[in-house]
């Protein structure tokens, strides 16, 4: 089970700044555990942020994004009370979508 993306979205002068902290191990597949065995790769491959059903930012990750990836981005058109949905999917097919209310 994955954990919810921690998010904060605030609008100032018509620009909404979103701070998203995705909860994910982001294993590269190159790290070894204590017994010397390779830990299999497990990382987010795709994400998408949507405001009122419109995609404002989407992207893809490789294995070199830090554990619990941070993304800070800004878009126009958001209003206080609007919802922002953030989805990700990883290389094992795990998916999740979380929502935050713009404040």
């Amino acid at each position, binding site marked *: 089970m994955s954990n919810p993306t921690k998010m904060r979205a605030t609008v100032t002068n018509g620009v909404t700044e979103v701070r998203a902290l995705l909860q994910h191990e982001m294993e590269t597949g*190159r790290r070894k555990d204590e017994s010397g065995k390779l830990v299999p790769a497990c990382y987010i491959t*795709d994400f998408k942020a949507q405001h009122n059903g419109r995609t404002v*930012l989407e*992207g893809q990750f490789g294995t070199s994004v*830090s554990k619990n990836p941070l993304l800070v981005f800004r878009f*126009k058109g958001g209003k206080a009370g609007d919802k922002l949905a953030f989805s990700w999917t990883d290389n094992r097919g795990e998916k999740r979508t979380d929502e935050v209310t713009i404040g």
Partner: protein
Amino acid sequence: MQGIDRSTMDSSRRHALRAGVGLGVFGLLATLGLLPKSAWAGVDRKVFEAKSLKEAFQAMGGLAPVDSNLINLDVPETAENGAMVPVTVESRFPRTEQIAILVEKNPTALVENLTIADGTEGYISTRIKMAQTSSVIALVKADGKFYKAVKEVKVTAGGC
């Protein structure tokens, strides 16, 4: 003038072909735009397997990104923990379509690729892993052209 243009074009075509071979048939097809893009628009996943900067640039369609002072790349001079290096990219191009972050000396060069929608600012702040001291590159696509900004980050403890 025309002569110069032609030779530049020929040389980038040669590079493109070489990169295609380097990445295998998939890379070549991706370079030519013949492969379906991943489910969520952006680049083909194969781009993330590119080992060198050159391969990655070419697979992304940006054969020769031009240095631009309209891109602000904010990274620390020295990173004590290579597992968590803060990177902020700000593009002042009026129509920024794409921002990608690459690390020259990581096992694979491309770290992340972002598609910037209309109305979204050409700005991203994130954290990346770095295996060793290396150049960090912000690649920006604006109005169909590729631009870049490059900075060196000294890594005291690698985190890949």
